[in-house]
């Protein structure tokens, strides 16, 4: 199996956010909100870190 770097980020973020959402909140609506928040932070944080590394290199 081969996977792109961004694909790996998306899969990792998705599954991790699902578990975080279920385990860290009690109310189902808050679970979905917290899961979406975690997903956005994972993906957004990776993109920001990637651009930072690009800027450092150049």
């Amino acid at each position, binding site marked *: *199996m081969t*996977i792109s770097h961004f694909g*790996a980020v998306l*899969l*990792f973020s998705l*599954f991790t956010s699902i*578990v975080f959402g*279920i385990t860290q909140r009690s109310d189902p609506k808050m679970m979905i909100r917290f899961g979406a928040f975690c997903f956005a932070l994972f993906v957004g944080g990776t993109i920001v870190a990637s651009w930072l590394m690009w800027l450092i290199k150049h």
Partner: protein
Amino acid sequence: MTTNVQAQARPAQKTTTLPPVLILIAGWLIPGAGHFLLKKWIRGTLLLVSIVAMFGIGLALKGKVYGPNTAELLDMLNFAGDLGNGLLYVIARVFDLGAATEQIAIADYGTKFIVVAGLLNIIAAVDAHSLAIGRKAS
């Protein structure tokens, strides 16, 4: 007003008659099993699918499954993380799944997927235990 505050601070009711330790161990051995025992079917299914998928993707990416070792601190920590997968880890070891060494760069991602799947499974098992003893409301 004081009465209301006390009522809100009261811990949640227990949700099962099963021993909480049994739920903790079941949740560790099989991802989501702790929630299944508490009849939280949707949560259990989502946890099962997420953790098994992460473990499976890790193996498919030729990630490494760590055995007991005393080599380096990080290797020992990775082994501890892998152990969190419960029976998935046992199956991987019995059938010799997971590369002995990482041959390609992307396999490092696979190794991390496997370790994180184990850590997430521990979080899920502890969550089921918290629900069973009433520490978590619902």
